[in-house]
């Protein structure tokens, strides 16, 4: 632990804040909600195979709504809590570059969300595998995991930036998730083209169909947007005023 503090002080601090409060617990509980749906499916299996059930669950619930919420909670808290309670000066008044601060926080968000999401997907797949005619589930699990990691990487960067720019970032994030990703992104082609949902599903479909160019192109786009958001967060942190 002492070595972690020394090597990654900002990340270790932020993970401790997440695990010391409710954030980490909420992230893990939310990540397990799909497993609950899987249990309901296994108890009363309707006329779909476990593979079809998992794909539908991932496309309609996890990617547009659940995953963004799981990421939103820690990503907006990473800087947001410190801005709110006035502890940010303990980081800002240090001879540490703003880039390192942002990357440290970003890494902490990923360290909490990615394991939780992956654990949730594994448990969900295991539960669903007890349904009738279970085939191809490993392949779906890998595709879901790949798309989830890509989406978490993108959304973490977006929400870290939002927390530094928008005063009530959690509320703003919720509105974005429900209005943009879940509702408008589903029906309006223009919105769909610039929603994280669309790109996560491209990665998912690409991995599922062994269409690696599609998956890697979508992943690259998400990575570029994430980098831009992180650079904007660095710029914002350089000019932020705390009192």
């Amino acid at each position: 632990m002492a070595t972690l503090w020394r090597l990654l002080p900002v990340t270790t601090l932020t993970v401790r804040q997440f695990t010391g409060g409710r954030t980490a617990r909420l992230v893990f509980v939310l990540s397990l909600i799909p497993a609950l749906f899987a249990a309901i499916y296994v108890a009363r299996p309707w006329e779909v195979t476990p593979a079809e059930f998992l794909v539908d669950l991932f496309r309609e619930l996890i990617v547009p709504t659940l995953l963004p919420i799981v990421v939103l909670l820690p990503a907006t808290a990473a800087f947001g809590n410190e801005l709110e309670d006035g502890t940010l000066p303990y980081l800002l008044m240090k001879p540490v570059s703003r880039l390192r601060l942002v990357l440290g926080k970003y890494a902490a968000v990923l360290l909490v969300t990615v394991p939780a999401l992956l654990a949730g997907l594994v448990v969900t797949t295991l539960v669903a595998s007890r349904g009738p005619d279970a085939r191809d589930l490993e392949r779906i699990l890998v595709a879901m995991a790949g798309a989830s990691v890509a989406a978490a990487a993108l959304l973490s960067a977006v929400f870290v930036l939002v927390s530094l720019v928008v005063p009530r970032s959690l509320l703003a994030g919720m509105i974005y998730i429900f209005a943009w990703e879940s509702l408008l992104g589903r029906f309006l082609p223009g919105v769909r083209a610039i929603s994280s949902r669309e790109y996560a599903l491209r990665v998912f479909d690409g991995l599922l169909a062994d269409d690696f160019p599609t998956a890697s192109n979508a992943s690259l786009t998400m990575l570029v947007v994430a980098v831009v958001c992180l650079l904007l967060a660095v710029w914002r942190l350089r000019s932020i005023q705390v009192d």
Partner: protein
Amino acid sequence: MIEPLNPSLNQVSIEPAANDLPGLPPGAEAIIALRGVAKWYGDVVAVSDLTFGIGLGVTALLGPNGAGKSTILNLVSGLIRPSSGTVQVLDRTVPGHTMVYRDLGLAGEQEQLYGSLTGREFVRLNAILQKTPNPDFATERTLALVDMADAADRHLGGYSKGMRQRIKVAAALVHDPRVLLLDEPLNGTDPVQRARMIALIRQLGEEGKTVVVSSHVLSEVERFARNVLVIVNGKLAAAGDFRTIRERMDERDHIVRIRCDDPRRMAAALVVEPVTTSIRMADGRLIAETNDVRQFGRLVPDVARREGIRLFEMQPVDESLASVFSYLVGS
């Protein structure tokens, strides 16, 4: 020599500074320099027309609550940007230079700390972020300095206000900075802790550090700082040697309340004395105004003895900081 800093205020200063900055003794180097600094939020002006320098040793930032002391400390810390003017610390303009924080520490006014960390973890985190060569050694040294070694393994969330103050000072000190800013460090401390904190502040000043301590308690400031910057309504009202300012304050008329068994006879005896400016009765007590409070303090018991009057109470009623500041701003 006393000189006004701003014609609109009844300000005092000691010597004119060699490098044109008020607050600095002649020839002294400005470790912190504010030139024409103002900070406003929309229509609200937090501080304005601030030009002063702070040199080595302890300097008190004295002013009533809401005067702008914390705003000044935040400006010097680079946490907020001046709306106009420049702030320099060790010849570097802030904000803008993160490396200045190697030589700068702040124990700010915020109450919240990282509640899930222990005191030791918190101080050590600051040592690591400051890139201190031996963070463990620095942590233990600083914890001992603020007398927090015994409570260092408790979580910050369970600390009392006084303990939070001391752990904040430890976090600000852990990298042995040349400049230390302490925002009301004595708030919430008990008398023993207060005495230790004052001793520590004086020790740091004697070691050659620049220590800026904000306070709204006049009597406290007297115990650790010789140099004082008095801030009133966001402006610099007085700067310089504490004793000079204190003497200047003593020159004004003071109000003294007297309770005795024969106030009329006491009033008749006092009114003829040259140091008595005016005297009146209120609720069976005498309210006297004097132009020399020390002499008046000796006079009243003498008069009581001479006239055979029993004296129950004699108390200056305008010694509060607010009245001192009212005097300094000439209102």
